[in-house]
């Protein structure tokens, strides 16, 4: 099996085929594209998305922004992405970059972990940044960029419980098949309970398959609506576009707060500004930048690298969040860092 | 303007219609005068229906002109024809089965209140009115699929009358009628001509033509091959004109020599599709070497009876014995295996697979047997040979054995079925309406085949609404009424009148 991932080593593509940078207008990239990635001096960063697009307003997008900013900062000649349509293409898509002699390849999503490790074996002198990929045993040229989702989830829970008037808070989630989502939710529930032991928490995972769980905004919206009519006045939307649906829906109901996920969704889901008090973030973008920089400076750590996680700013709702709540959040954050507070989430 | 004769209501000039591979109409001329009944004769595939469809605006002719009431018209669609008072009862009824009689009648010229709401009550009233006016008894509220063919045809006629047609085309209207129903229809046709309606009447039954036609036109191979007057014609002369050769009309057969009992049916009960009892305790016997003709008006349970007998429909009570073996609950396959041949009533539905080649259709119930297949693998060569042989032997008019059954004319479709069922050794032959809608040439052929089978010692069960057919073929006549055999007579005692009465339900 898995042979799809084996590289066409000898048939490396001729250089004129070298990719242009995609998201920006092609012209200006053209000449800069002359740089040959296989050349030691030239830095090239490639990114392979999980099944999904680099504009998913979620973790693919955050990773891609990280890659771009890193390229900017490090003066990379190339930064390019490939969107995976078929999960079986992970290996092949990685190989497309590797064969061009790219120096850093970002692979997004836990699902790509296996393909990444396989590729790392075949291309020992390329550094791989595996977003959401927890490394069982450490390889020198693979670093798993992982996060304490349970911790930012926990903070979100604390915020939710503190804001809730009704004593009912909800979470609308992508599938339970994806560990980070479960981590967010478990943290969220325990965080809420830590504030109000008798709070009612209604949480729902998308019941569909992996291929639709994150791309079903209408399900997210209608589920949020049902949660709200069940009395929930805070909705935590965690699950890509499905979660976004929940956020936008909540924005339509007076007296309901919503909390986003992954990145600061204030930027990515403006439709939800009315209710979006904060987001439980896993800071993928800076994480990718940090690791890329380390790689460029020859200090690539390998193993697992924990990226920062926490709550996004409250933006327009600054005043809605009382000072007490803010203090409580800071205290909790400190406690989580020094270990005096545990989220009660243990994977596996 | 060619013909100023005011009495001419419809005139067709040089109508030519080409179908892929077939020149269906070839420069045909036709005139119809006010209040006359014009009979149109011709073999299967002669082009009668095609010509009528052209006059009705359904087909656009490749060449030719149509004049209606002195006006040159170009009929884009039936709407145009209807607007000019042309009505047509099609050979294949054009009724929507799941709709009621009234709905079918008003379809296309509905009686509506505002917002296009259909006034069902008014529609029913109008239909009742028409059916009383012309003595066409019918219940407007029945769904057409629940009606026997005879009644379905009334609906077709009422459809035309409802649209106030004064030029009425009847394409083989009597093909599915009993003598009584036919006479009824002729009466109606006369009444209509009295009222100034002109009628084109297509049939394969020469008796009828001689009985009621004012003029006769004969088509052959798409050409008009002559006109005749009933007064100056005989069945024989017309038949010859149609087929282009002498035709022996009455089957000549010698005394039957009945052998042992082949089929015995005892107190059979069968339900129809709507779970209503259609066969109510039917009993009969058929012996080797005889033809038992079952006469009866359409819809008295014949279909259900035959389907139960051939395993296509479960029976609820009673016993069927074939060659001494209990065949009451056998599958169609097992019954066929008992050397039973079956010519089904509905050739399009049961008899043939339209998209299959003639060759494939000719092995429809034998494909699994040697020589057509060996250990579950078809032998294409053998199937082809069989096809070629039978097409020649049974004179099926087709360009090739690979032609799809769908593109054959009615008569030739039936020939394919007959060829299939007669070309293997059988002990019992079940023929249901074997010659419906078929031209004299083919009828003669099929009748002779049936008699030949009888003489070869086959027990023949002939179910037919065609009284003449029963009388000319059967050795014994069983009359079926309301799901039972009400009486069985030796052919000598079976007079038209007596049978006719029995068929109508009155004990004679």
């Amino acid at each position, binding site marked *: 099996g898995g042979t799809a991932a084996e590289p066409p080593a000898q048939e490396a593509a001729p250089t004129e085929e070298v990719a242009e940078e995609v998201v920006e207008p092609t012209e200006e990239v053209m000449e800069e594209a002359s740089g040959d990635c296989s050349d030691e001096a030239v830095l090239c960063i490639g990114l392979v998305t999980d099944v999904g*697009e680099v*504009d998913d*307003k979620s973790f693919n*997008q955050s990773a891609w922004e990280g890659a771009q900013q890193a390229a900017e900062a490090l003066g990379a000649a190339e930064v390019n992405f490939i969107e995976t349509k078929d999960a079986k293409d992970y290996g092949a898509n990685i190989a497309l970059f590797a064969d061009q002699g790219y120096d850093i390849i970002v692979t997004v999503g836990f699902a790509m972990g296996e393909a990444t490790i396989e590729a790392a074996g075949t291309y020992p002198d390329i550094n791989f940044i595996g977003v959401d990929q927890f490394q069982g045993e450490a390889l020198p040229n693979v670093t798993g960029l992982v996060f304490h989702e349970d911790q930012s989830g926990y903070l979100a829970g604390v915020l939710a419980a503190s804001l809730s008037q009704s004593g009912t808070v909800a979470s609308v989630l992508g599938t339970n098949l994806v560990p980070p989502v479960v981590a967010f939710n478990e943290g969220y529930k325990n965080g809420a309970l830590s504030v109000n032991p008798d709070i009612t928490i*209604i*949480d*729902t*995972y*998308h*019941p*569909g398959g992996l291929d*639709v769980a994150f*791309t*079903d*905004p*209408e399900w*997210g*919206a*209608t589920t949020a*609506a*049902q949660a709200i*009519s*069940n*009395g929930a006045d805070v909705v935590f939307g965690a699950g890509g*576009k499905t979660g976004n*649906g929940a956020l*936008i829906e909540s924005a*339509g109901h007076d007296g309901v707060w919503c909390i986003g996920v992954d990145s600061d969704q204030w930027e990515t889901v*403006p*439709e939800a500004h009315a209710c979006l008090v904060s987001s439980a973030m896993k800071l993928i973008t800076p994480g990718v930048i940090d690791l890329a920089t380390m790689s460029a400076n020859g200090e690539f750590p390998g193993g697992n690298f924990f990226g920062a996680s926490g709550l996004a700013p409250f933006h327009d709702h600054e005043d809605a969040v009382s000072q007490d709540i803010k203090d409580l959040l800071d205290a909790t954050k400190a406690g989580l860092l020094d270990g005096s507070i545990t989220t009660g989430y243990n994977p596996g | 303007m060619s013909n100023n004769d005011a009495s001419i209501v419809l005139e067709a000039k040089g109508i030519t219609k080409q*179908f892929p591979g077939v020149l269906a109409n070839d420069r045909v001329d036709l005139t119809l005068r006010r209040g006359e009944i014009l009979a149109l004769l011709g073999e299967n595939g002669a082009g009668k229906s095609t010509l009528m469809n052209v006059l009705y605006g*359904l087909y*656009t*002719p*490749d060449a030719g002109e149509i004049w209606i009431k002195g006006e040159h018209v170009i009929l884009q*669609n*039936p709407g*145009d024809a209807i607007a000019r008072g042309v009505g*047509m009862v099609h050979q294949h009824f*054009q*009724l*929507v089965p*799941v*709709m009621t009689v009234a709905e*079918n009648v*008003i*379809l*296309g010229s*509905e009686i509506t209140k505002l*917002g*296009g*709401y*259909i006034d069902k009550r008014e529609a029913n009233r109008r239909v009742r009115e028409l059916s009383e006016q012309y003595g066409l008894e019918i*219940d407007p*509220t*029945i*769904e057409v699929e*629940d*009606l026997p063919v005879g009644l379905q045809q009334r609906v077709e006629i009422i459809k035309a009358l409802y649209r106030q047609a004064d030029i009425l085309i009847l394409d083989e209207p009597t093909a599915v009628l009993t003598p009584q129903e036919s006479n009824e229809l002729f009466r109606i046709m006369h009444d209509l001509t009295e009222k100034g309606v002109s009628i084109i009447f297509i049939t394969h039954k020469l008796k009828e033509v001689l009985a009621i036609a004012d003029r006769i036109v004969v088509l052959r191979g798409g050409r008009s091959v002559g006109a005749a007057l009933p007064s100056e014609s005989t069945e024989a002369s017309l038949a010859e004109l149609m087929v282009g050769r002498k035709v022996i009309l009455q089957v000549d057969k010698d005394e039957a020599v009945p052998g042992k009992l082949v089929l015995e049916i005892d107190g059979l009960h069968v339900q129809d599709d*709507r779970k209503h009892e259609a066969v109510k305790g039917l009993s009969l016997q058929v012996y080797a070497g005889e033809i038992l003709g079952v006469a009866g008006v359409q819809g008295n349970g014949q279909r259900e009876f035959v389907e139960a007998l051939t395993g296509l429909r479960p029976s609820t009570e009673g016993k069927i014995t074939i060659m001494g073996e209990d065949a009451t609950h056998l599958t169609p396959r097992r019954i066929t295996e008992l050397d039973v041949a079956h010519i089904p009533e509905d050739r399009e539905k049961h008899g043939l697979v339209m998209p299959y080649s003639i060759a494939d259709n000719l092995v429809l119930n034998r494909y699994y047997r040697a020589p057509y297949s060996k250990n579950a693998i078809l032998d294409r060569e053998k199937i082809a040979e069989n096809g070629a042989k039978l097409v020649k032997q049974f004179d099926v008019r087709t360009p090739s054995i690979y032609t799809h059954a769908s593109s054959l004319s009615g008569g030739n479709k039936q020939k394919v079925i007959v060829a299939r069922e007669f070309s293997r050794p059988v002990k019992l032959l079940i023929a249901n309406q074997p010659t419906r809608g078929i031209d004299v040439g083919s009828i003669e052929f099929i009748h002779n085949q049936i008699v030949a089978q009888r003489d070869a010692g086959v027990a023949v069960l002939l179910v037919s609404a065609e009284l003449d057919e029963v009388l000319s073929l059967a050795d014994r006549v069983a009359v079926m009424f309301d799901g039972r055999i009400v009486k069985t007579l030796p052919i000598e005692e079976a007079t038209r009148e007596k049978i006719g009465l029995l068929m109508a339900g009155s004990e004679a």
Partner: protein
Amino acid sequence: MELTAKRQAESSNWFIKNRWWVLIGLILIGSVIYAYATNAVVTTAVLASTLRQSTPLILGALCGVLGERSGVINIGIEGQMLLAAFVAFLANVYTGNLLVATLAGLLAGGVMGLLLAFMSVTLKMDQIIGGTVINILAVGLTGYFYVSGLTTKGKFQPIPLGPLADIPLLGPVLFRNPPITYLAIILVFVLHYVLFYTRWGLRTRAVGEHPSAADTVGINVFRTRYINVIIAGAIAGLGGAFLTLEGVGSFERLMTNGRGFLALAIMIFGKWTPLGSWGAALLFGFTYAMQTQLQFSGVNLPPQFIGSLPYILTILVLAGFVGRSRAPAAEGIPYEKEG
């Protein structure tokens, strides 16, 4: 005559004929009242969610019914909805006017309907293929032209219908809905009326059952099919518009997520009648709502089990109650008008 008697017997005892529906109806009403008595909040929540989730499904199903009643199978509902959702979304983004956006959605759906009609009526293409073309095309076009970062200017909000909206249970469930939901319910009854009580409906059904019969009485088969399929497309378009303008308020690739195919199933489930389809769509919406409510109530089952309920239930109901359903007879067969 005898047949008449039978007929009257049949039609007279409608209750016996539809005993299952009557029974189901009674059971439903009874249990709703009971549920409301025991837990008003949850009951309201579930029923409201039921109606909402049934809305895109019934709109899709109505599209199917209209097309198939005129003899054109439409398995392209999914694509028609998706593309219309996208167009409505863009219109909303650029005009900010929800009404214009809705019309844009209707138009897009209608155009897709026109395409289907052209393929199946004029080109006499196989209708399964025609629908599949539309589905793939919609996925391709929406995916290719979608650019992220477009944000809409809001979505339809509920419009309480005066005093009606304050009736307990019924108020929040039926009379506090956004416009497209109201429209969908009205459409169910309008289409049922049109199909079974008006001239247009009679002709449409005739064309779907027996086109040559319709033809011989001067009904233009092609025109009838074109018009029905185009209108049907527009209705599917409304379903798409619901997703982007009323449900989500934004567009995502593949956001129909198979609702068009479910609609197809619902249409058959409902025996090709608008009312029947509505019943089926509501049943679906209800099972979805229940499945969510079960998770809310924290039952300890894997979501995959709960997630299967709607589909298994449908199969059971289908096999148990509805049974054989008869499609319009001429469905799927292009009308060949010789000469």
